[in-house]
């Protein structure tokens, strides 16, 4: 249950689809995180590259973890350009009772930020500028470097 879209996410339709799909599956808690592109400095928006094979295997590991707690994770992400005040990222957790969903949405979003193979660019004057300062190194980065 991982969806990738070109451009901004249609938040209303994604949340509605998810709710309609799962409301009668006896989950008592449905928590959504919606990330919205903020206006900061002179950026016109953000842009994203995704390495889909690794993103899907990262997500499937999370789905296993969720299922072991009778929960479910859902996620949608944009590829390419997303203007200011549009959404680029939505994730959700469904669980029978609230505690699992409340804890898992936090862990899921933080792990996503640290480990999902997605690259972010600021859009400035129509050009992509890699958001290097806000990016995080993946585990074991540097193993091919000769600068020891």
């Amino acid at each position, binding site marked *: 249950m991982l969806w990738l879209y070109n451009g901004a996410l249609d938040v209303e339709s994604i949340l509605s689809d998810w709710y309609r799909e799962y409301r009668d599956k006896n989950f008592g808690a449905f928590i959504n995180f919606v990330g919205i592109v903020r206006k900061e400095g002179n950026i016109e928006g953000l842009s994203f590259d995704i390495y889909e094979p690794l993103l899907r295997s990262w997500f499937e590991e999370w789905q296993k973890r969720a299922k072991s707690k009778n929960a479910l994770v859902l996620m949608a992400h944009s590829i390419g350009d997303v203007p200011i005040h549009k959404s680029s990222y939505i994730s959700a957790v469904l669980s029978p009772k609230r505690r699992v969903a409340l804890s898992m949405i936090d862990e899921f979003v933080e792990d996503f930020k640290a480990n999902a193979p997605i690259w972010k660019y600021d859009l400035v004057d129509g050009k992509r500028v890699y958001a290097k300062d806000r990016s*995080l190194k993946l585990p074991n980065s540097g193993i091919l*470097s000769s600068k020891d």
Partner: protein
Amino acid sequence: MAKVEFLGPIGKEPMEVDIKNLKELKDIFRDDKKIQEWLKISAVAVNDTLVNDIDIKIDKNDKISILPPVCGG
């Protein structure tokens, strides 16, 4: 030949290399100053699994991916 792909902002075309392990790939890149700047902050995946050991063996159909720092959402 194994394939090496450079993901996200690196902006380098994929290349094919004839190597037996990742250590030999490290040697190939030794004198490329531009790619060294990326390698020191990049992770490495072999066939879409992140690896932590440059002694790992590489077969001729393997795909090696270079992943610079990430920032989703």
